[in-house]
């Protein structure tokens, strides 16, 4: 059991960053992000004993993490809306400091992802994580053609957003 735990933790450690990226994309406030990171870690550990290796570890991990994030997001959406009314979405101090082109573009990308619906958000995260269309289809449970169509649509919208920002 202890060995199993050590093995799980070392595999998780290698892929840890993706958990933070998913949390960052699905939760707007820090408290929820930390809560979601814990929930994902817990559900990954719970499911690990059933991991048979029939799919890649990363595919399995993305499925669990995104499934938990979507479920968590749908449960906390109402409270987040209330928080947004009382807290500014971005810190005005950040705006002053984040004047660089790169920061602006990162913020636009993050804002675009935040505005997407739950499933499109998952699709976009996987695309940006450079997963192949076949793996994205396997994680989401849709066809590769569907993946390609949806990504192309999302990219068009994103390009429009960036061009509006730059003009």
């Amino acid at each position, binding site marked *: 059991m202890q060995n199993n735990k050590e093995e799980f933790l070392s595999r998780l450690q290698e892929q840890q960053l993706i958990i933070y*990226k998913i949390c960052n994309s699905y939760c707007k406030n820090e408290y929820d992000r930390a809560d979601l990171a814990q929930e994902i870690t817990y559900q990954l550990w719970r499911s690990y004993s059933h991991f048979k290796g029939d799919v890649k570890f990363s595919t399995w991990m993305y*499925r669990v993490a995104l*499934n938990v994030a979507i*479920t968590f997001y749908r449960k906390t959406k109402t409270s987040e809306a209330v928080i947004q009314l009382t807290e500014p979405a971005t810190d005005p101090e950040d705006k002053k400091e984040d004047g660089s082109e790169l920061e602006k573009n990162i913020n636009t990308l993050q804002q675009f992802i935040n505005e997407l619906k739950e499933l499109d958000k998952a699709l976009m995260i996987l695309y940006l994580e450079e997963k192949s269309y076949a793996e994205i289809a396997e994680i989401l449970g849709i066809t590769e053609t569907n993946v390609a169509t949806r990504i192309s649509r999302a990219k068009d919208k994103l390009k429009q957003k960036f061009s509006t920002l730059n003009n």
Partner: protein
Amino acid sequence: MEDTLLKDLWKAQDKKLDQAMKLNVYLLESLQKQKAESKLNSLARFKGRAVFLGILWVLFLAVLVYGNQLKNMYFTVSVSLIIVFTILAIIVYIKHIALIKELDYSKPITDTQKKLSRLQASTFNTRFLLLQTPFYTTWFWSTEMINGMGMKFWLISVPITLAFTVLAVWVYKNLTLENMHKKWVRKLVNSTPEHTSVFKAIDFLNEIEEFKKG
């Protein structure tokens, strides 16, 4: 904007992310204890509470039937049928809890989310409880009451029971997911404590279907 630029931007945010949470065995063990109250289990907890209350209700009614010692057949039959309906609802809820516990988060996202949304919308599976309504209008009947009321019994009590029967059967038949677009169905669902999650689940089910279509 090129694809590679988009992906570079995505990578550039890595350093902005908080990586304070260092995983270790101790943290994992404390998480296991703490997450017994996991947010994702709230649906199972809600159904668990309903099962508990249902069992209390059945026990209470069973005591009443036992106390009545078959003195009044109308009471015994009506309350016994209400007990049967409640037991059936308890069984349905226990099945739901088992399904929630078995929910596999490592399956493809659209499949898992579909199952979860169906479970959240499963309030409709217990709509057969509506069919017990007429028995709430007959449990107080007795031979003395029927004889004492005479024609009034046939002109008032029986039509009330018949009206409840017709209404219960009609609502049971029409209260379906397919009829959710109808105003009265939405109003009726709105009056239940679970309505928000039911509506959200139905909307999300439609979203998943759209997503799968492409």
